[in-house]
């Protein structure tokens, strides 16, 4: 696991209450990566490969990683505006944006507000919309199901989802515990979606690819298809033998889809 560098902490916006951890990997043209709620991306093998071609910029959203969490930020809508400040401060222009799961939701929110800085948008098994009836469970309830049930839905091969918390140092566990708390704070209600987002997705004008794990049981490829239809010109690529985190379970197949789209 990568060590913490104090230089990774950046004040965002006019107040010092918002300090984000922003790490960079590799060299090349910049690519903005919005991590998922489990924060697994920074230490994942696919990132080493991506870092050969890009300078990958990974901000931890408020309350995740070592980023602060001001009270006024209550959900992805706020996070998206705040992330646009990050884009401004880093002077990012014409960059690819890749978002995973909760980070995919934030990337979609950002793109509906301002996609002028985005060259291409990639959303990997994102949350964020609800298109069905009130009683339809489109996004499986990760807080109502048991941890074992969630693991079974989330992973094609549940063994890949095992994490050894008992041997993890306390400062890393503190981040895991805080990440989980923050995810619930921002995703509890409305449950992992913003009712307004589906009415805003048409504003995304940049080329968009949705990458989906074929066996994602939390948000299924059918949900991905509904998402795709709401973004003009978007394409959906399904990665076989993968669940909610195709970039972790099938890094090669994931990278093939990603590179084909970005190149």
């Amino acid at each position: 696991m990568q060590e913490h560098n104090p230089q990774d902490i950046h004040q965002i916006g006019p107040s010092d209450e918002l300090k984000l951890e922003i790490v960079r990997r590799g060299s090349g043209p910049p690519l903005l990566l919005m991590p998922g709620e489990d924060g697994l991306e920074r230490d994942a093998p696919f990132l080493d490969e991506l870092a050969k071609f890009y300078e990958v910029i990974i901000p931890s959203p408020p309350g995740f990683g070592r980023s602060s969490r001001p009270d006024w930020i209550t959900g992805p809508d706020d996070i998206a505006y705040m992330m646009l400040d990050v884009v401004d401060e880093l002077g990012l222009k014409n960059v690819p944006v890749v978002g995973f799961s909760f980070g995919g939701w934030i990337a979609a929110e950002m793109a509906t507000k301002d996609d002028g800085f985005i060259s291409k948008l990639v959303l990997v098994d994102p949350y964020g919309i609800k298109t069905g009836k009130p009683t339809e469970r489109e996004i499986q309830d990760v807080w109502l199901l048991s941890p074992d049930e969630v693991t079974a839905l989330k992973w094609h091969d549940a063994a890949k989802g095992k994490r050894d918390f008992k041997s993890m140092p306390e400062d890393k566990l503190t981040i895991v515990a805080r990440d989980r708390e923050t995810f619930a704070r921002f995703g509890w209600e409305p449950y992992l979606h913003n009712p307004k987002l589906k009415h805003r997705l048409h504003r995304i004008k940049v080329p968009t690819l949705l990458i989906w794990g074929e066996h994602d049981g939390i948000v299924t490829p059918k949900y991905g298809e509904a998402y795709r239809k709401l973004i003009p010109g978007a394409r959906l690529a399904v990665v076989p033998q993968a669940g909610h985190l195709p970039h972790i379970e099938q890094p090669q197949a994931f990278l093939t889809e990603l590179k084909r789209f970005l190149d």
Partner: protein
Amino acid sequence: MRAWHFTEMPYPHIPPFDELKNTRVTIPNRLFDPKIGADLYNRYLDEHCIADELGLDIMLNEHHSSASCIDSCVPLPAAILARQTKNARILILGNPIANRGEPVRIAEEMAMIDCISRGRLDVGFVRGVPTEINPANSNPTMTNERLWEGIDLAMRAWTTHDGPFNYEGRFWHKRAVNIWPRPYQQPHPPVWITGSSDRENVRKVARHGFTFATFLQPHENTRSLFDEYRKHYVDAGVPHQGGTAFLPLVFTADSDSEAEAGAQELLWYIRSNKTEPQFKNPPGYASIALNVMALQGKFGGRTEAVRAQGLDYMMEQGILIAGTPDKVAARIRKFYDQVGGFDHLMMMQQAGHLDHRRTVRSMTLFAKEVYPRIKDLPPTVAPKAAAEPALAK
């Protein structure tokens, strides 16, 4: 020392616990037979009326989606008992203000019950246990923050008498708060808050001069919480308010063997608390430090810890008090000394399948033979005498 009769109003006619994943949150209500439920509600209310006749005070609580407690709307029995009882103080412990929201509505309900009972209401506000998060669909984070903002708003509603005020807080926005009626007791009914480990919460309760209550805790823990409270207590000058309260399971019997049998029945309450991990510890309900311990496998919840210990431990610690009147009185006096004194004994005298006859026998023995021997235990803080309501200027 004041003594309060309490039952969670259980619905015990459910399948064996090993056939159920959860006794709360997901247990389907097809298992609730409304005819049996009707009998149970009326029986539990009868027992509260008997408590009143026996000179005991009354405590009520609220849970949701649970067979352990079918009192899902605590102002309702409180309002019924405000009419049907004569002397008992009626304690709601408590209003789940952090989960339910609606602090102004709660302030109105409490003010009405206070008026109907002519000033016999004690009002608890609680953060709510973790299993309440899903039934309420309240965010599992910020529960303490919502609790205290809710209390602030409810108390402003009780104590503002000059027409509407506005409130734009972090969680609640109200335009024209102006409740009718105002509470009978002045400046407001006594306020109680519960706690189990959070020291900062205990200090906050003490600094407001509210009554502090804790449930089913080993006596060493209880003492450290009560010591912390007493160290920081500030008298707010509210009649009946202030001091410490403890809730054990209590069964008083004519013989040791009957006491033992009754104690076993009360343990249904502990045994019935069966839920899956996602309901015991929703994300962000407990502190990050506790969740780090949970990830390390070192923390599984306080109720779990007590449950794992068994009957002897619970008797030894004062979590369960059962015996003949002599023994119960002696145990309570000993507990009083062990915790540096306390002011309110809240007694779960009914749980599970413990039937009406045996419940009332235990209550009666307590009221007639135990209560007179512990009533003289002095208060640990000095509450003001009840005052007549003053008219608002």
